[in-house]
């Protein structure tokens, strides 16, 4: 990978977002260098998903900037960051066709071949011709990750990747994420599962009420959070 053009580090500065007179994000800023698993955590409504969506370009901030090392996060016209949504969006097609559709949309050559590789890697080959929407929750999430992986992103963003999954499926998804990180893919994910943070993340961004309260190594954050909000969050108090 060295020497290849890269969109990272991502430099986020002063992200602010208003909706219906409410300030949902207020001056959120952080830098995301290459590598590692960064967990965006915080209470419901803190702005975790919004931050991901802003970084991925799905919504525009009222103020602030999202700066990629190259262009707008694209190289050769193709976005180099991909996103997996909390509820995987499954097209009304077969598992294979879901992969091929995404690859075609971004003009990858040999979409069938690449789809086959993604199916094999994520253990979906036996399910390839099944309608994607009939898969179990865990299988759908695996397909969503496979579909994002097939687009060869440098940065993969995942919004609560195991929120609706049973422990077995959660373990599978965590293994996949850890494997991707080990291969050098940069991961930015939201979660409300502190155990997952401990198992996967090496860095924590703690959001509270639209503000970034802490940016610390995961181990340090879990052991000795600096802000009273984070201490209360870790102690399981409801935050307002």
């Amino acid at each position, binding site marked *: 990978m060295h020497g290849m053009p890269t969109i990272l580090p991502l430099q986020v500065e002063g992200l602010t977002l208003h909706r219906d007179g409410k300030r949902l994000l207020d001056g959120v800023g952080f830098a995301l260098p290459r590598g590692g698993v960064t967990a965006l955590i915080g209470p419901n409504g803190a702005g975790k998903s919004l931050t991901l969506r802003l970084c991925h370009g799905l919504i525009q901030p009222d103020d602030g900037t999202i700066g990629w090392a190259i262009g707008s996060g694209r190289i050769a016209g193709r*976005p180099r960051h991909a996103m997996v*949504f909390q509820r995987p969006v499954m097209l009304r*097609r077969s598992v294979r066709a879901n992969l091929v559709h995404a690859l075609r*949309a*971004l003009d990858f050559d040999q979409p069938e071949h690449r789809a086959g590789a993604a199916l094999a890697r994520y253990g979906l080959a036996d399910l390839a011709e099944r309608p994607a929407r009939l898969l179990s929750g865990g299988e759908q999430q695996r397909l969503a990750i496979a579909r994002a992986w097939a687009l060869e992103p440098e940065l993969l963003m995942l919004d609560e990747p195991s929120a609706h999954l049973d422990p077995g499926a959660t373990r599978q998804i965590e293994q996949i994420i850890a494997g991707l990180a080990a291969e050098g893919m940069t991961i930015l994910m939201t979660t409300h599962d502190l155990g997952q943070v401990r198992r996967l993340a090496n860095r924590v961004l703690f959001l509270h009420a639209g503000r970034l309260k802490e940016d610390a190594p995961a181990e340090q954050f879990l052991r000795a959070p600096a802000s009273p909000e984070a201490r209360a969050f870790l102690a399981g108090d409801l935050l307002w």
Partner: protein
Amino acid sequence: MDALGAMQAAIRLMVTFDPQFLQIVGLSLRVTLTAVLVAAIIGLPLGAWLALARFPGRTALIVVINGLMGLPPVVAGLVVFLFLSRSGPLGPLGLLFTPTAMIIAQTILVLPIVIALTRGTLEELWQEYREHLTSLGLTGWRAVPTLLWDGRFALATGLLAGFGRASAEVGAVLIVGGNIANYTRTMTTTIALETSKGDLPLALGLGLVLMALTLAINAAGYAASRIGTRFAG
């Protein structure tokens, strides 16, 4: 002639492939299928545009189109008649009392169904798919092929409903076609005419074909929605 005798004569017409009988059935199918095809070519893109575009007056337009789904066929026939009649704006084309005029009238009947159904189906799909498709750079018209394909079963049901409406109507084709023997006489107009003349076998035979057609359309629609449910999960 009693009803039983008429029924026997009607079945004889059908099984002996009576040329006049076949000609009427054939014309009806040609007119209605062409109308549905034209309505699909116009209505699918228009419905897709209406599903994705946002502009002032959009809601009013949707309400009008939904309302036009219930347009009485005789009114559609009357409007087309006024346009195509010799003193009308399209009079010089000489289309009045031709199969083409009937296709135009039935297209007008089917079009609102296709547009409204496409709009509703695609708008719902877009709500669900928006973030994923935006993520893939498929916004605006680039999203339309995906949405049309994923709405294929609902859209097929809509086209079948349009076919059902057009094949069963009598008012529009009667007015603009003129019910001319061997030229613009369809199943429905023939049934109306022959019944009033007392020629029950032909009317009854055509009625049976119409019924069978309706049944087939509904069966196909049911199958489409069943298969669609399989994919929709």
